[in-house]
């Protein structure tokens, strides 16, 4: 076997100075053979040995494992306070990449009881969109940002709401309808509230909306006791001021035409014939006077209509009713948890919902449960079951568990409230909304019976949120 040095000497191409191969082996020391090669790395300087290179096992007492934590490189400025929340709560109502749906009708005061619109997607008129945005009717989790412009499916329950509105307007002696919307997660409860608000705005009603009852009870807004109340009630003045600003902004068209008609004991002097939207603005500007002004505004809105001053009906809505059917996160001065019904705004809504406080000009009080991250409220569940049994005319109404404490205030507030249960869409409604997805270019499949049946089943029986998730959001 020839020595390796000799093999290395063998030139791949002719060497610059031809030299006998044998001579190289005999005469030259092996170190000089590097010059013979054409590759550069052989002639490069040998890398200096580092003290802790892997030449053998580390010495005793020396740390063998040397893992450095990667330093997180900070770049740019940190987000300003509230910036992240603003991003999280941002509401996008348009997708310029989605196609405009041709021939989609808009909701108007003429067609809210039009049965031919059922199973069709109906657009929300632009002016109403601004009002809905002002009352925070759009939720960031809903898929408004997927389509060209805000639109919603008219389902049977939507038509039912339209009939309620008509009923209130045509009833003798101004009727009040009170309902709690229940249904599983993603079944369209919040959207139904939004549709109710849309119809109310279109009809020229006053809309008061508490967009998420969680904000009132989880202790994220300041609170203080209300004097001369027994049991003590608590006022959340910043929230009230914000609510007043929402009311004013959303209902400007209606409230600007209404004027103060009664005497109110307010902490600030106000003009005697001030319009109601300016009154609300005054309260929105100063949280200290917000609650008295809210009370005054409500008194004005519920004042009996006269020939000179016609008061419109009111739509009072609240989303997440299971948050207010329990103890809140606030503590009283003797460190006891405050029941949510002792918060003034919550009590205001509960009075309207239970019928304790009438709406003399008529109106609808609507509440919806919220199923995501919902706190336990067994009494509300019982009350809902009881209400459903009553409406169905069942012989046996569910009774409270004998060995579990029930919240009597919750039971009392729900005593004669009816429940509107949202189930999944039926196949026709599912087809209607899927055709809208396809027309928007967001569903790139042919909408036929097979596809509708498949998506309907996968959505757990037409749960509309799941239907949207699997047809539009999860598209591959």
């Amino acid at each position, binding site marked *: 076997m020839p020595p390796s040095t000799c093999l290395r000497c063998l030139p791949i191409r002719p060497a610059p100075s031809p030299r006998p191969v044998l001579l190289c082996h005999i005469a030259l020391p092996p170190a000089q053979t590097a010059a013979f090669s054409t590759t550069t790395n052989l002639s490069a300087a040998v890398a200096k040995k580092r003290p802790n290179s892997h030449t053998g096992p580390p010495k005793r007492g020396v740390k063998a494992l040397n893992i450095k934590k990667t330093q997180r490189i900070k770049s740019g400025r940190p987000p300003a306070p509230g910036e992240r929340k603003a991003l999280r709560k941002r509401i996008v109502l348009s997708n310029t990449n989605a196609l405009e749906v041709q021939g989609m009708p808009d909701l108007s005061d003429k067609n809210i009881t039009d049965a031919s619109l059922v199973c069709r997607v109906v657009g929300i008129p632009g002016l109403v969109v601004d009002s809905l945005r002002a009352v925070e009717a759009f939720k960031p989790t809903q898929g408004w940002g997927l389509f060209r412009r805000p639109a919603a499916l008219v389902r049977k329950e939507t038509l039912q709401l339209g009939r309620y509105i008509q009923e209130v307007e045509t009833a003798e002696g101004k009727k009040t309808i009170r309902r709690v919307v229940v249904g599983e997660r993603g079944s369209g409860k919040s959207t139904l509230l939004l549709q109710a608000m849309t119809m109310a705005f279109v009809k020229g009603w006053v809309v008061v909306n508490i967009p998420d009852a969680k904000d009132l009870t989880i202790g994220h807004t300041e609170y203080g006791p209300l004097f001369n109340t027994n049991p003590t009630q608590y006022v959340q003045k910043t929230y009230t001021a914000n609510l007043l600003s929402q009311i004013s902004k959303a209902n400007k068209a209606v409230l600007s035409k209404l004027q103060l008609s009664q005497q109110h004991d307010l902490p600030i002097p106000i003009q005697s014939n001030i319009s109601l939207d300016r009154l609300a603005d005054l309260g929105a500007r100063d949280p200290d006077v917000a609650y008295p002004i809210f009370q005054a505004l409500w008194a004005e809105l519920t004042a009996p209509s006269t020939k000179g001053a016609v008061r419109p009906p009111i739509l009072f809505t609240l989303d997440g009713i299971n948050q207010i059917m329990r103890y809140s996160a606030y503590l009283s001065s003797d460190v006891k948890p405050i029941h949510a019904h002792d918060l003034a705004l919550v009590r205001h809504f509960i009075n309207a919902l239970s019928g304790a406080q009438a709406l003399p000009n008529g109106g609808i009080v609507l509440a919806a449960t919220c199923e995501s991250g919902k706190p336990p409220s067994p009494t509300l569940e019982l009350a809902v079951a009881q209400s459903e049994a009553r409406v169905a005319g069942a012989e046996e109404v569910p009774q409270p568990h004998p060995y579990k404490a029930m919240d009597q205030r919750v039971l009392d507030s729900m005593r004669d409230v009816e429940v509107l249960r949202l189930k999944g869409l039926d196949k026709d409604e599912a087809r209607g909304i899927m055709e809208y997805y396809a027309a928007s270019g967001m569903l790139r499949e042919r909408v036929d*019976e*097979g596809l509708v049946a498949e998506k*309907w*089943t*996968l959505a*757990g029986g037409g749960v509309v949120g799941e239907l949207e998730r699997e047809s539009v959001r*999860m598209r591959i």
Partner: protein
Amino acid sequence: MKPSVLLRHVNGVSTALKCTHPPCKGRLFRPVASKLFSTTQHQRATESIAASPIDFDSFQSTQLSRDILRKVRVVPASPSYFTGKPDFTDNLLSLQALLRKYQTLPVVQPGHAPRIAWKTHAQYKVSVSEPVKAAKYGKIVQLLHRLNHIHPSLVPEEVLEALQLYKRDVNPYDNVAVLQTVDPYGRARGVGRRKTSTATVWLVEGEGEVLINGKSLSQAFGRIHDRESAIWALKATKRIGRYNVWALVRGGGITGQAEALTLAVAKALMVHEPALKPALRRAGCVTRDPRIVERKKPGKLKARKMPAWVKR
């Protein structure tokens, strides 16, 4: 060493080894001179080595019998002793003789004979303890196959007995799946398993509603992938809108439950529409996935994971 004792001992071992086989009829006891038998005795230790045992007690201890004994020579019982594979040769010859005897009997159409699982080559080699080649055993199987085709109403008892020797202990073809039917309420039942989950499904004709443990499909499975897995059999055959599923699932995790449902729905669907089986097989809904979690081993952290290397 007493030859008689040795002979009996050897014979006892061979009978224990071959208890299922009756003694070969072709073997004869031929008393010949006694010189040769001790040398062959040590080389082979099976029944086929030589001959039936000599009953020494029958000989009187007279002078005459002693003279006879002196002339006795043990010869192999079977003429195939010197083939090297005597049992195999005897088997082959006896089957051939049997076929020759009954070859005129009417036979059934090819493929219409009762399905019988014959002993495998390995099983046969163990039973005769001889190095039989596969091709040679193939000849036996060929004969068995031919004999098995004799018309069932005319098969002689002798043939049945002979075939019995070559059957496997358990005939897998006897295990016929019970044909499931749709019950009077229109329900078809199917059971499926995957990992440690077990699903039972009742499938009825309907509008595509699904209830799993009393919950809707979207409540039972949060992931859309799992929902699709659960009703994959219906989706692959475009039957989603035509059947209602009512299922109970127990054990395991979410994926296991969803995939157990795949199998259960497919089996129930095959009860309603047996013609869908090939389509379902192509969709991968017919065969149970046999993979289960691998057991943990001593010295390892999990099934295969080794503990971290520590220097001394």
